[in-house]
């Protein structure tokens, strides 16, 4: 028994014999080791084990729960058949909800919950709750088993000829073949998409010299007099239609916003030159990861991106004031054509949207 005392002073080696709490060994051990394992405590009977009336009550509760579940399923079927899908009803405290969705969910939920509650109540009150112990066995094989396996393996390699270098060529060429064959699978992935052409498609947008600027809201080309000082207009290039096959790809690069500032408020000379009488046209695609940065604060001329709060100063070349964006929003050079409409003077000088390796 002395090993037990030591096992508490030192590392427990996991091999200490398990005490099972047999009556006569107990007092003596206790004296030696106050921390000895007293063994599994005796089973304490529940009220259901002692009183048949309590057991009967439990049985009735379980049966009731299962019955409620059946009724709930009937309720589910009735709801499905009877409640119109487009109805909207006020249900306290959830507000205006679809009564179909509500009753399908509640009846299904109840049907499932009661099965669960019944099963758990049954197992807790009526099934035996006596704990028992099972031995664990080491995961590791015994030395004998290991030796036998090693011997089998040695035989196998010997029979195949790989083991002792006699058939090195077979082995090496096999490894070579196995290593190469997955390459076909990788090559097949090449046509998942076209070449990025060094980022060329990311630089090119629909804006060209003379492209009119279409107001998103009205669908009409913008004139300078449409914009009062302090306003912000969202716009896209002329010729881009919602029904176009490549609408999404194009708008993802070409979407712009125009602001009109008092010319003396514009801090950046080049920016002022690229606009028209205080009207500046910026890409609205955030240079961080590409959300539209369109929350505009009139007093400060700040444009805020709602995704990660990058803030751009539109009066100062849209430079980044705050947030994770890495560079300013590109500005589109605009002018007024002979008909008095605002028009682009060319494409963006730098690619709009998030940056990329070849951006430069």
């Amino acid at each position, binding site marked *: 028994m002395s090993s037990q005392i030591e096992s*508490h002073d030192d590392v*427990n080696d996991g*091999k200490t014999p*398990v005490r*099972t709490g047999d009556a006569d060994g107990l007092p003596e051990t206790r004296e030696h080791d*106050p*921390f000895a*394992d*007293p063994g*599994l*405590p005796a089973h304490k009977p529940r009220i259901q084990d002692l009183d048949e009336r309590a057991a009967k009550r439990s049985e009735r509760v379980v049966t009731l729960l299962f019955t409620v579940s059946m009724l709930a399923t009937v309720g589910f079927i009735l709801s499905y058949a009877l409640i119109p899908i*487009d109805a909207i009803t006020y249900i306290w405290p*959830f507000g205006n909800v679809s009564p179909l*969705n509500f009753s*399908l*969910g509640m009846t*299904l*939920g109840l049907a*499932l919950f009661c*099965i*669960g*509650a019944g*099963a*758990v109540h049954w*197992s807790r009150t009526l*099934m035996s709750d006596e*704990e*028992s*112990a099972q031995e*664990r066995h*080491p*995961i590791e094989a015994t030395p004998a088993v290991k030796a036998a396996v090693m011997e089998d393996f040695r035989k196998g390699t010997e029979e195949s000829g790989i083991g002792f270098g006699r058939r090195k060529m077979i082995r090496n060429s096999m490894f070579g073949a196995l290593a190469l064959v997955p390459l076909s699978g990788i090559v097949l992935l090449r046509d*998942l*998409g*076209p*070449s*990025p052409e060094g980022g060329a498609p*990311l630089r090119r947008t629909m804006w060209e010299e003379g492209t009119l600027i279409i107001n*998103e809201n009205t669908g009409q080309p913008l004139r300078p007099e449409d914009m009062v000082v302090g306003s912000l207009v969202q716009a*896209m290039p002329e010729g881009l239609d919602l029904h176009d096959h490549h609408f999404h*790809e194009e*708008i*993802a690069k070409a*979407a712009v916003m125009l602001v009109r500032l008092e010319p003396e408020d514009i801090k950046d000379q080049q920016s002022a030159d690229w606009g028209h009488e205080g009207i500046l046209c910026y890409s609205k695609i955030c240079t961080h*990861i*590409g*959300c*539209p940065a369109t929350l505009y604060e009139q007093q400060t001329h700040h444009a805020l991106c*709602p995704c*990660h*709060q990058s803030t751009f100063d539109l009066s100062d070349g849209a430079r980044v004031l705050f*947030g*994770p*964006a*890495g560079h300013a929003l590109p500005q589109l050079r605009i002018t007024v054509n002979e008909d008095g409409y605002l028009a682009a003077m060319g494409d963006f000088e730098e690619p709009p*949207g*998030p940056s*990329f*390796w070849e951006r*430069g």
Partner: protein
Amino acid sequence: MSTTTNPPKRETRSGAPAGEKVADWADGRLGVYTVAKSNMRKIFPDHWSFLLGEICLYAFVILLLTGVYLTLFFVPSMAEIEYEGSYIPMQGVLMSEAYASTLNISFDVRGGLLMREIHHWSALLFVVGIFFHMMRVFFTGAFRKPREINWLFGFALLVLAILTGLTGYSLPDDLLSGVGIRFMEGAILSVPVVGTWLQMLVFGGEFPGSLIIPRFFVAHVLLLPGLMLGLLVAHLLLVVYHKHTHFAGPGRTNDNVVGMPLFPVYMAKAGGFFFLVFGVIAMIAATTSINPVWVLGPYRPDQISTNAQPDWYLGFSEGLVRMMPGWEMVIPGGYTLNLGLLVPLIVFPLVFAVIALYPFFEGWVTKDKREHHIAERPRNAPTRTAVGVAWLSWYFVALVAGGNDIWAIHFDLSINAITWWTRISFFVLPVIVFIITRRICLGLQRRDREKVLHGRETGIIKRLPHGEFIEVHEPLSAEKRYALTAHDQPRPAELGPSVDENGVPRKVGPLERLRVRINRGYYGPSGQIPKPTAEEYREITSGHGHH
């Protein structure tokens, strides 16, 4: 005839019940009796924290059931059509078939909305469950030998679950889901050298193209669930093979497992628990709307709403991105390095790797080769517990950063201040939390020691004859005493003598020096409070003394 090699012939009793006949038939082909013999009465220990893993399993089953239902109606196509369904505000709007079919599921299929909501709620529960389950395993040291591989299986399941959630969230093609995809595109583009190539290959062309949803769909309904199913089965087989850990207690040792048999008690409890979880989720789905995709309309790359938030399990990566300053530079050669996105993209997997590889780190530090089947109480492994809580605080900081706009609005703070707080906390908070947690663990160990030696405080105050007041301490039962002293207290590692027995200087590598130092942090005087010895106990109890 080879009858001699057959086992003694077993006759099916003529009057046997139908069930037995079926079982006999199956046994002749599958050997079910042999399987049942070793498993039917297998013992499973009971503890509330062991339910966390079960919750994940049930959430997965619910996801499979509702997910298969959704595939019957969902159209994974980005072809643009005009919406003609019964949701009036969207009638005539141009949208992808994916979005239109999600509206269809929500408004024209009876019970479709419920299935969508159950699917989404269980997806959240699934990832939450995995997370907490993992914490349980971590803090009880249940990842130690022989369970390291199963820890990795579990970790892979976490990663796959997050990916599945991400691809699922992207399927409906509403405004929020499109913003999520755009986020991915931006992140891919920031990869040096091959970023633009990857972007083109993943999207099949320029963003957004028309392939990303069909591709995500296949990943979401086939590839990822298939992988998860395989891993899950392997995970559970290993649980059965290793047998579950249990907490030390009277009769519960490293060499046995104490609990209830699989059949019937565990089966009834676990099976019942599945229905409870499913029922509760159904009721949540009935009453609490989630992801109402019809509110914001179809995705357009030039439109956005405020408060765009990913599902919670991606809040961490969102936070890293929001915390990071917008560093971007052009390196020689004219190439752009977008550190603002690249750094989060690298830190994100690193933070996960820290927790995934911790078991191997601890194994290296302790050089402990024994099998462990006792779930440790977190206080008895102060350093590990402190590492875990510090990691959680790391995660928490990033999560806070992910919702910086929400905090700013609700608590009227400046975004700038929150961002700076998170940037500093990301480095400082884990260290502080580590130190405090270790202190707390040591304090709790000290309290356990007091309890064992001096008994439990009863709250009864007694006045001694000479007027002094003392609190009556009640000695602990043998069971309690055992439970509080059964844990291992390894001795700290030693570098050993600098010369060997022949007087030749021993060489100790720097790695070994480091290991010994860390080990002494774990098991030295600063890392654990010695548990009471039998001598101490006897000395105090024989004096019947209070001091």
